């Protein structure tokens, strides 16, 4: 490598004289004692209009993340308009009564940050991270796009086209399609069954009036929180919040009740989606699971990490390391305000799909019969706790974690208790969780790919296997096929 040789000599030439040479180590220095992440209890104060102001002060660098959270999101999408909450949040930053989209982008750029918005389950957000001197101006921008979005027709068209293009690309991936179809099969008509980003058809149906209606119904101060994370004290934060959002009026009408109807799993499982010529098969399974506030949430997270999160998880050991069937397989326990989704997914070569399905089900079932030994439990807990700690490093991460708790209706001080609770989970907690919640028969299974290569193999285990052409799949339909759509 000639280039690197040249670079090395350049560095050597620069070195003499000016370098403070650190003591070279022959071996890495010994690791210090673990230093647990310490998270102060969040400060909370509610303004006169109902807006909750949440502050976690973190000094050291003059940075602050401000995040406005609406406690409604994807679960509020009307059945025929999946993706509406995300589209609405995306459009907030694309023009207000007094600023065009380019003016908003310019203003954000001048403050040194990026104005971001979006929606997920039980939350829509607008956020920005800036240096402390720019905070008041950043809040003015966040308040303007939250309270006075223009929802211009041309911007709606542009956002719609972008989103549809993105969906056409992602839904052509067997893994994405299989996952979304498995979630729909697990939930049926329940709101948790639909695609958060919508579908090309639902976005095409969405009108400006739908966006305006969602915004008017749900973007209100008594359904919102303003989160500050970083170099700011509670007193200043409340004063800034009052200045930027004090005039946001609480409507006289009562806040629409949120309820997420119970899952109505389809009986059709497994399902094969025929994608002619697909190079790989996406294998996915899903079922409803516990809410974030459930007492065994932490046992569930540890169990999920043992099963399918990270390189050394049981699923990855069996499917990737021992059998070489895939580069990656993962399980996810997504616990929300009113229940959640447990899912397992992977991509493999078409012919291996039946084997991957069988191994996934075996490993899920084994969680109930084979509890982790001390080494496995300790290693997976370290992976989980380390990942959680790293997810709090930046002020943006910290605000995001608070936003998730706020969205799911959990006491914000829980943030400081997470690590202790994860650490306290025992092997028998893990086994009890698996036995209580992971009945393999409840998983809805979808394999998407070049069906002739795996359909016969799947039929050996599942004689009633249903094969549906990709063109007949309708993710907006509770039963997944166009024929059953209302």
């Amino acid at each position, binding site marked *: 490598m000639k280039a690197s040789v040249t670079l090395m000599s350049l*560095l050597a030439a*620069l*070195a003499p004289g*000016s*370098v*403070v040479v*650190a003591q070279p180590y022959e071996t890495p220095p010994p690791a210090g004692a673990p230093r647990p992440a310490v998270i102060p209890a969040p400060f909370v104060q509610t303004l006169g209009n109902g807006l909750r102001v949440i502050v976690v002060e973190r000094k050291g*660098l*003059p*940075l602050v993340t401000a995040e406005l959270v609406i406690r409604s999101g994807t679960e509020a999408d009307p059945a025929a308009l999946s993706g509406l909450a995300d589209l609405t949040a995306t459009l907030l930053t694309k023009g207000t009564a007094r600023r065009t989209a380019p003016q908003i982008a310019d203003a954000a*750029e*001048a*403050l*040194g*940050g990026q104005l971001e918005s979006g929606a997920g389950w039980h939350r829509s957000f607008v956020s920005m*991270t*800036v*240096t402390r001197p*720019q905070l008041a101006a950043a809040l003015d921008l966040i308040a303007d796009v939250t309270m006075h979005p223009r929802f211009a027709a041309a911007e709606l068209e542009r956002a719609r086209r972008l989103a549809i293009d993105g969906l056409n690309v992602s839904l052509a991936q067997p893994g994405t399609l299989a996952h979304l179809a498995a979630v729909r099969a697990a939930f049926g008509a329940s709101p948790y069954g639909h695609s958060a980003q919508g579908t090309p058809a639902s976005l095409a149906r969405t009108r400006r009036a739908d966006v305006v209606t969602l915004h008017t119904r749900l973007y209100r101060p008594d359904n919102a929180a303003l989160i500050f994370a970083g170099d700011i004290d509670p007193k200043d934060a409340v004063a800034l919040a009052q200045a930027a959002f004090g005039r946001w009026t609480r409507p006289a009408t009562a806040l629409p009740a949120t309820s997420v109807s119970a899952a109505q799993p389809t009986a059709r499982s497994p399902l094969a989606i025929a994608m002619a010529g697909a190079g790989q098969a996406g294998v996915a399974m899903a079922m409803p699971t516990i809410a974030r506030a459930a007492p065994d949430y932490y046992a569930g997270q540890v169990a999920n990490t043992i099963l399918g999160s990270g390189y050394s998880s049981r699923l990855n050991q069996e499917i990737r390391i021992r059998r070489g069937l895939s580069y990656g397989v993962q399980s996810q326990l997504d616990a929300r305000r009113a229940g959640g989704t447990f899912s397992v997914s992977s991509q493999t070569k078409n012919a291996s799909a039946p084997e991957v399905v069988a191994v996934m089900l075996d490993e899920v079932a084994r969680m109930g019969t084979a509890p982790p030994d001390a080494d496995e439990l300790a290693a997976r807990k370290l992976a989980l706790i380390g990942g959680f700690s790293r997810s709090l*490093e*930046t*002020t943006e991460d910290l605000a995001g974690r608070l936003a998730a708790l706020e969205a799911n209706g959990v006491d914000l001080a829980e943030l400081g208790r997470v690590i202790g609770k994860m650490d306290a989970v025992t092997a028998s907690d893990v086994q009890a969780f698996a036995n209580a919640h992971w009945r393999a028969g409840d998983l809805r299974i979808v394999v998407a790919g070049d069906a002739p290569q795996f359909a016969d193999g799947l039929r050996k285990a599942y004689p009633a296997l249903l094969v549906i052409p990709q063109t007949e799949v309708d993710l907006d339909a509770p039963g997944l096929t166009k024929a059953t759509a209302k």
Partner: protein
Amino acid sequence: MRQEIDRLAGKPVAAAELAKVKTQLLTQALLERQTPLGKGMALGDAILIQGDARRVNQELDDLQAVTAADVQRVVRKYLTGAPAVTIEYTQAAAAQGGAAK
């Protein structure tokens, strides 16, 4: 592209634009320094590239001290005053038909 470079060389950058870019660079540097990895990278850069670990604490102040005249001087020295190579990358068929650009 050449025009924009020549414009920077010809006239000092406006105060508001300079302030905007400084804010962006400062914010970006601070964002990176929030994590242990980012702090390590900043230190490594100071030691290996700049030759002094202490530069990590000085470079952000130096950045804030940059003036419009400094920018113009550097543009003149390194961008308009130095040999340059321009590469146009076009599809063969379109280039032959003269339709590219």
